[in-house]
């Protein structure tokens, strides 16, 4: 079944106000920024965002007023520091008050893994002694064998996971490489998955390396062909990180006014991701093109 569509169509039809959306699940790379921009453009509201760390994506969506709640371990600007919109929302309720379900990287991963595994919790030894471990999504559980007391992490079930991948076929069978973060867990935890992909490849291409398939297509509802759809975050083999973009965002988002002008320029004034890339300009995009000769060796599936 061909699931190819535009980002606009995917976000219009699959994302409803109030949904819990996992995105930015590979940490600082392959963040589905283009999808995030489209969510902002369509003025989705009251979303719950889920990820360990997704660099400035959560800050952008919070600043744009799309978010009511985050389930995360870290929200900010990884290279530059604090997330100004996250701060404004958490400190002053601007543009909206923000609920925060506090996690560590590990506990977000465990919560998603629990959902992916179909169980309501997973036990862990982590974050004992941290003040945020007293929150309601952590509870004590006793090992029925040794009697050891562990912390139970409540499962985290996204309504949707949005992932940017390197290769997908039209059915959403996707090859991903590089650091995987919690991408696999999020895809299997979510009720449905939206993929944006650097390349659309043939089904046969996917089948020629089934070990590279991180997401099987039967979990996926929409596939968008969106090269550079993770800009400014990197996509191994396809795009370097656009560091300046993060620093510029950091500077401009210091004020609410600056944030609004940033959003106007990069999101609202352009129609879609093609418009965004045009705004970045060819020269800048050329500078993000990977160089080198680092290819994986082919392996044999012969028999």
């Amino acid at each position: 079944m061909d699931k190819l569509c535009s980002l606009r169509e995917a976000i219009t039809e699959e994302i409803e106000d109030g949904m819990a959306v996992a995105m930015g699940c590979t940490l600082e790379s392959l963040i589905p920024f283009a999808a995030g921009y489209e969510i902002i453009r369509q003025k989705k509201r009251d979303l719950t965002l889920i990820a360990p760390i997704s660099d400035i994506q959560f800050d952008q969506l919070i600043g744009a007023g799309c978010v009511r709640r985050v389930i995360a371990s870290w929200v900010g600007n990884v290279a530059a520091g604090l997330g100004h919109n996250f701060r404004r929302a958490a400190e002053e309720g601007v543009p909206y008050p923000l609920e925060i379900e506090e996690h560590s990287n590990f506990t977000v991963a465990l919560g998603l893994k629990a959902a992916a595994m179909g169980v309501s919790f997973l036990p862990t030894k982590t974050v004992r002694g941290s003040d945020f471990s007293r929150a309601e999504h952590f509870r004590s559980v006793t090992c029925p064998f040794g009697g050891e007391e562990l912390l139970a992490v409540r499962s985290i079930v996204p309504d949707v996971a949005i992932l940017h991948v390197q290769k997908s076929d039209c059915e959403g069978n996707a090859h991903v490489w590089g650091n995987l973060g919690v991408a696999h867990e999020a895809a299997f935890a979510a009720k449905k998955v939206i993929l944006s992909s650097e390349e659309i490849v043939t089904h046969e291409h996917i089948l020629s390396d089934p070990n590279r398939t991180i997401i099987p297509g039967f979990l996926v509802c929409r596939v968008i062909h969106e090269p550079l759809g993770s800009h400014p975050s990197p996509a191994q083999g396809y795009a370097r990180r656009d560091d300046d973009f993060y620093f510029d965002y950091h500077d401009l988002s210091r004020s609410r006014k600056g944030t609004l002008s940033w959003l106007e320029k990069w999101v609202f004034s352009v129609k879609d991701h093609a418009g965004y890339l045009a705004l970045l300009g060819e020269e800048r995009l050329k500078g993000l093109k990977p160089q080198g000769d680092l290819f994986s060796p082919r392996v044999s599936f012969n028999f």
Partner: protein
Amino acid sequence: MDYTPRELMVVAAAREIRDGEIIFVGMRLPLLGFAVAKEIYAPRAIGIFENGVMRDWPAREAFLTISDPPNVAGSLYCGSVLDVMALLQSGRVDLGFIGGAEVDRFGNLNTHWVEEKGKRIRLPGSGGAADIATMASRCIIIMNHERRRFPPKVHFVTSAGYGNGAHWREQERLSGGGPSRVITSLGIFSFDPVTREMVLSSTHPGVSVEEIQRETGWPLRIQEDLRETDPPSADELAVVRKYDPKGVWTS
């Protein structure tokens, strides 16, 4: 010899890494410390990153986040957050580097919120720091030494050190060993093996005890044989500069 305070911190971090150890690295100074250790003291150390990457050699190219392509290419293993956290939880991570906005006298770290002029400032949160603090065999805390960052008690415990001291970690059943050192821009601390209080063990060259006391929010405990931190050797410095030629992290 000419070196910056941060270069000294990098080298001090590097000297804490033993050969063959598995290290939760992180960005910035610890990443450079890992490079120095690998090239000089600990050629068989393994660096792991919370995004699922494991490396047996630091990347040569500069980069700003652990998921940047130079840190992925040429790595040993690319997997998931759970893969590397499993190593931590099963007690196989010897050492982790962490930092924060505040550290207190028992080595507790805060990256959640602080107060400035009566106003609450929201910080980014734990990331993987609480995981490392709870479960690594030992942790090293790296901090800029400023009085506001060294309160007697942190506003919020993001990453537990020794809690309120003594047997707190054992009582709370934290599986890791807790912080072993605090490397600051002014000196190096260890922890009293009984009270678990931070103890100044060396001052960086040119830094006085009085200056450190001034920047510390509680009455300093000072090790009997207080030393001066060994300055970076030429070899150490050469490696720091090889990996940070423009001084992005160390100038």
